[in-house]
C-alpha cells in the first residue's frame, strides 16, 4: 500500500452519496477526480465556498477502506460548528466541494507483511473517534488480514454509536475482530453492568493484555484520549506502542 508523501492541491469533488449514521452523524461518499488512494487512518481537508467566494475548511478522517478506492468521510455535527452542520444537514448528492489530501502518515495502520508474525492491533474509540479506526477495520477485512484486531468503543448510547450495525456484523462474521462496547450514558436493555463511565477496570477488560505488545490506536475527544492513554500506560502498555489522534477543543 503506498501512502502519498504529501497532499495535493485542492481538487473539486462531487458528493455522490449520503447516508445517515446516527441523528448527529452522516457519511458522505465523495467522488474525487484523480484520487491517489489512502492509508487507513488518514484524513482529508474539505473546503466549502459560498457564492461570494467566502471559504471555510476543516479536516475529516476518511472512513472507507483503503482497498475500496472510494473516499468516504463520516461527519459528526458540532452544534456550534461552521462546516459540520452543512455536511450533516444540507449537502446533497451532486453538490460540489473541494478536497485536499489524503494527509497524515503517523496515525496509520500498515498491514503486516504476509510472511511476518501478525502483531495484534488494539483500537480504542471515543464517540466519533471511531471514524479513522473504522477505515482500519474495513481495510483489515477487505485484505483478509489475519492480524488480531480488537476494538474498545466508548459511546454515550447505542443510538449514538456510529457504524453500530456494521460493527456487530463484522465482529460476528469474522474471527479476527472483537468489539468491546462501553456505554457511558444509556446501555441496551439488560446490558450487563448497565451504563457506566469508562474507567481503568473497564479498559483492562476491553483491551489486549499489555504482554501481547499490541499496536494501539486511540482516537476521540481530547479528554477521552488523555484518560484512555493514561489508563493504557497504567496497565503496562508501552508509551511507544500507543498512537493517538485527538479532535475538537
Amino acid at each position, binding site marked *: 500500500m503506498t501512502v502519498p508523501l*504529501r*497532499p495535493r492541491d485542492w481538487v473539486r469533488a462531487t458528493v455522490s452519496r449520503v447516508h445517515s449514521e446516527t441523528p448527529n452523524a452522516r457519511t458522505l461518499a465523495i467522488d474525487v477526480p484523480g484520487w491517489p488512494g489512502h492509508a487507513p487512518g488518514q484524513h482529508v481537508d474539505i473546503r*466549502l*465556498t459560498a457564492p461570494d467566494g467566502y471559504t471555510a475548511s476543516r479536516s475529516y478522517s476518511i472512513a472507507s477502506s483503503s482497498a475500496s478506492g472510494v473516499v468516504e468521510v463520516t461527519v459528526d455535527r458540532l452544534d456550534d460548528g461552521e462546516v459540520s452542520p452543512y455536511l450533516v444537514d*444540507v449537502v*446533497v448528492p451532486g453538490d460540489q466541494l473541494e478536497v485536499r489530501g489524503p494527509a497524515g502518515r503517523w496515525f496509520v495502520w500498515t498491514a503486516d507483511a504476509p510472511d511476518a508474525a501478525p502483531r495484534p492491533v488494539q483500537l480504542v474509540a471515543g464517540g466519533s473517534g471511531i471514524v479513522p479506526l473504522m477505515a482500519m477495520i474495513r481495510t483489515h477485512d477487505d485484505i483478509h488480514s489475519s492480524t488480531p484486531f480488537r476494538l474498545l468503543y466508548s459511546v454515550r448510547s447505542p443510538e449514538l454509536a456510529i457504524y453500530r450495525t456494521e460493527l456487530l456484523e463484522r465482529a460476528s462474521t469474522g474471527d479476527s475482530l472483537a468489539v468491546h462496547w462501553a456505554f457511558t450514558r444509556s446501555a441496551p436493555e439488560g446490558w450487563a453492568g448497565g451504563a457506566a463511565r469508562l474507567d481503568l477496570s473497564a479498559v483492562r477488560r476491553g483491551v489486549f493484555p499489555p504482554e501481547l505488545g499490541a499496536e494501539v490506536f486511540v482516537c476521540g475527544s481530547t479528554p477521552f484520549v488523555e484518560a484512555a492513554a493514561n489508563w493504557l500506560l497504567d496497565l503496562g502498555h508501552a508509551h511507544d506502542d500507543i498512537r493517538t489522534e485527538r479532535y475538537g477543543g
Partner: protein
Amino acid sequence: MGFFSNGFSGRRRPEVPGLPPGQYVTTSFPVLSTGPTPRVDTDDWQFTIATETGAVHRWSWDEFRALPAEDVSTDIHCVTTWSKFGTSWRGVSLDTLLAGIDTGAGFALAHSYGGYTTNVPLPDLLGGKAWVAFEFDGEPLASEHGGPARLLVPHLYFWKSAKWVQGLTLLEHDTPGFWEQNGYHMYGDPFREQRYW
C-alpha cells in the same frame, strides 16, 4: 470563479486582522499530539542545548526557573486550521538560554520527552521570537499542553512549539523533525500557508 458549495453561506466574520489564510478563530485550546502525554517530573527535568561541536549546556528545573522570565502575549496558529488570539504565557527567552553559547549553527532540532522532534532555523529562535514557556494564563503549564515546559515559537505553525521540550541540538544543516518527516513543511510560516512540503 463560478464554483460554490450549494447552500453554503458560512459563518462569515468581518475581516479578522492578523488571521493567516485558511485559518479560523477559536477560543478553546485544542490539543494535538501523537501519543500519550509523557509524565515528566520537575525533579527529573533537564533542559539541554548541544552545539554542533558537541558542547552540552544543561539546566535543572531550579536553574531554569532562576533565569529571568518574560510575559508573552501572542496569537498562535495550528496547522489543523485553528488560530487562537491573545494567549498569555510566561517563559524564558531563547535569547537568554542561548546567550554565551558559542555556535555557528544555522538550525536547531528541538527534542522532547516522549521522543517528539521538530526543526527550526536558529535565527527564528533569536531576537525575542521564541521562549521555553512554563506558564499559560497565569497557571503552571498543564501536561496535556506540554508542561512542565514547552517551546513557544508563535510566528510558526504551532507544531514547531514542541511540547514537553527537553532540549535543542544545534546543527549546521536543517534536519526534518517528526511531523516534517511525515509531510509537514520544513519551515511552517502560517502567513504563507506553508502546511505541507
